[in-house]
């Protein structure tokens, strides 16, 4: 395999595209888990968002209406998780598992009933998809060695949602660490009793976190079906919700490391696609399955505490019961 510069830029561009849904979903999980609501239903929410945004985009012919539908559907779906884990104080893991199954089944059943294409939604084109955006001066600087192609072919020419995802990272950092809401959100995940004593409603804070989580998974799903592909396919998230969860743990529940973890898992994914069947000079033929399993293996190794120790929010997964 010729590992030239053009191949490298194409892998990097692919990395950005593949990291985008991971960043949205991992940041979604960040808000939820920082507030003390563990959420393993990121996968299901992404599916729901991808499905309903594709449905709305194909019905209306507008990608923006698709995005809106994706966000509304994931908020509503996420609120079920909120209801189970905040109001009814159920087991959050059980609830998340349940929602993943409901999403996997529901999207296919509805897709089949409405379109009869084996769970696929109609092909989206034109304004029903998020097109690519050329950043200013992309053509002009393309001739500059090294930096030029990187700017023109990697950074420029991505979908709008890719830029939104990367802008979400500093925004999330700012919200979490520089606003009153963020401080309370982090506090409620560490010590809800203290927040309660301060006169702030624990359930309402957690519900808000669940809603933000819904918004961001809506973006993740919409990106997958309306920007990255042209329509919804059955089980199209293919475990990305779990990878996002892995990235979140890997990043120790911090926004900027989340971005790097997602980029790492994105580049692994891009390599798995590009290296299919190729043989490298030293290692020989790389097993695609190994690269695909690598994010999971890395997460397990990290969780085992061999590479630093993850410190999850202390009150995560524990329903809050007001003292009497």
């Amino acid at each position, binding site marked *: 395999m010729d590992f030239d510069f053009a191949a490298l830029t194409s892998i990097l561009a692919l990395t950005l595209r593949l990291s985008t849904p991971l960043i949205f979903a991992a940041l979604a999980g960040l808000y939820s888990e920082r507030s003390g609501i563990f959420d*393993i239903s990121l996968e299901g929410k992404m599916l729901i968002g991808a499905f309903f945004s594709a449905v709305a985009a194909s019905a209306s012919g507008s990608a923006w209406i698709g995005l809106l539908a994706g966000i509304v559907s994931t908020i509503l779906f996420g609120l*079920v998780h909120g*209801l*189970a*884990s905040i109001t*009814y*104080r*159920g*087991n*959050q*893991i*059980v*609830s998340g*598992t*349940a*929602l*993943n*199954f*409901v*999403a*996997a*089944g*529901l999207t*296919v*059943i*509805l897709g*089949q*009933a409405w379109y009869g294409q084996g*769970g696929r939604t109609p092909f989206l084109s034109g304004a029903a998809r998020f097109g690519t955006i050329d950043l200013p001066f992309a053509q002009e600087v393309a001739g500059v060695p090294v930096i030029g192609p990187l700017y023109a072919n990697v950074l420029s020419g991505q979908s709008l949602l890719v830029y939104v995802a990367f802008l979400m990272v500093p925004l999330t950092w700012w919200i979490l660490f520089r606003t009153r809401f963020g401080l309370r959100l982090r506090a409620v995940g560490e010590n809800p009793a203290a927040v309660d004593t301060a006169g702030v409603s624990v359930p309402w804070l957690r519900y808000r976190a669940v809603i933000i989580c819904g918004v961001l998974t809506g973006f993740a799903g919409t990106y997958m079906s309306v920007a990255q592909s042209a329509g919804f396919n059955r089980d199209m998230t293919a*475990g990305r919700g*779990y990878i996002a*969860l*892995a990235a979140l*743990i890997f990043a120790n529940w911090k926004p900027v490391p989340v971005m790097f973890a997602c980029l790492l898992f994105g580049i692994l994914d891009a390599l798995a696609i590009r290296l299919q069947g190729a043989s490298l000079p030293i290692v020989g033929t790389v*097993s695609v*399955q*190994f690269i*695909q*399993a690598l994010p*999971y*293996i890395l*997460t*397990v190794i990290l*969780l*085992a*505490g061999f590479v630093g120790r*993850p410190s999850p929010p202390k009150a995560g997964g524990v329903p809050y*019961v007001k*003292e*009497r």
Partner: protein
Amino acid sequence: MSRPYVKLPAWIEYGLIPIANVAVAFIVAGLVVLLVGESPVEAAKLMLYGAFGYGGGIAFTLYYTTNFILTGLSVAVAFHGGLFNIGSEGQAYIGGLGCALVALNLDTVLPWWVNFPLAVIASFVFGAAWAFIPGWLQARRGSHVVITTIMFNFIASALMVYLLVGMLKPMGSMAPETRTFQAGGQLPKLDWLFTLFGSSLGGAPLNVSFFLALLAAFLVWVLIWRTRLGYEIRTLGFSPSAARYAGMSQTKVVVITMMISGGLAGLMALNPVMGDQARVQIDFPAGAGFVGIAVALMGRGHPAGIIPAALLFGMLYQGGAELAFDMPNISRDMIVIIQGLVILFAGAMENMLRPGIGAAFQFVRFRPSKDVQAEEPR
């Protein structure tokens, strides 16, 4: 596991509330059926006929039930120890490897009744080994078993694809699966049981592993409620600090619980691999490990509840397959929704109906309200 809001008699706690929760799940599933433009009542009738209307249907139902009893037991054992094993799917998948190891090497050498117990041991050991790592990591390194078992499902899947497209695939074959086992690697079907009742199996793959599942259910009951280890498992699940004060080794109990859980999931592989297809195929557990979560929650972790819950899901699988012929809009994916709804309402939202039912019970019994102990503080 759950903290009751009101002290209720056993028949309400273990009878009425679980049934009401499952009923809610099915009502919501009925709404989905309505949403896709079919009649839920008609769908239920077709499903029941497909599952129990004729000999072959019953046999298929029991074939699926076998899978779900074993995975349900797997999840339930872990639940008793306070562990949520989402990895039964991957453990069953790896269990198939143990099965294949025996069948591929000995199928032409030894008869099935020698290979069967060997395969039971091998699949149990492989499933247990796959669950050992998450168990050990939870006990010793404090990494959460939920996350690690999810990761291990994906790793198992990648590993099995790797082996099935490489090492395990016979030369010259294109399909990613092992060679077909000879007679010594195939479990006998239960034709005789059905001819006994004047019916026929009709090509259904119901085989002797059905009895293995029933035996496993009995042994799990013995283990959890009649042995010292079972007592330790339940204590750990009920209160880890109490277990520690009582001098039980948390590490030991967690690891052993996870290994038993994984081993039971591994046994499930016998049914499709040696009982039906006579080879290992890609993704042969086909979600049975996840159905086990619903079965365990619905059966409240007790074998006496798990067997009927597994039968219900066996019925849904078989009846659902038949239903898809008549109502093409309702495919196998409907079961995935039902499975999710059952987990949601019988598991996560089990507290939803309890206050209402509790209040109704108090009202019927005319108890003075001071006896009502609302929400235990914790």
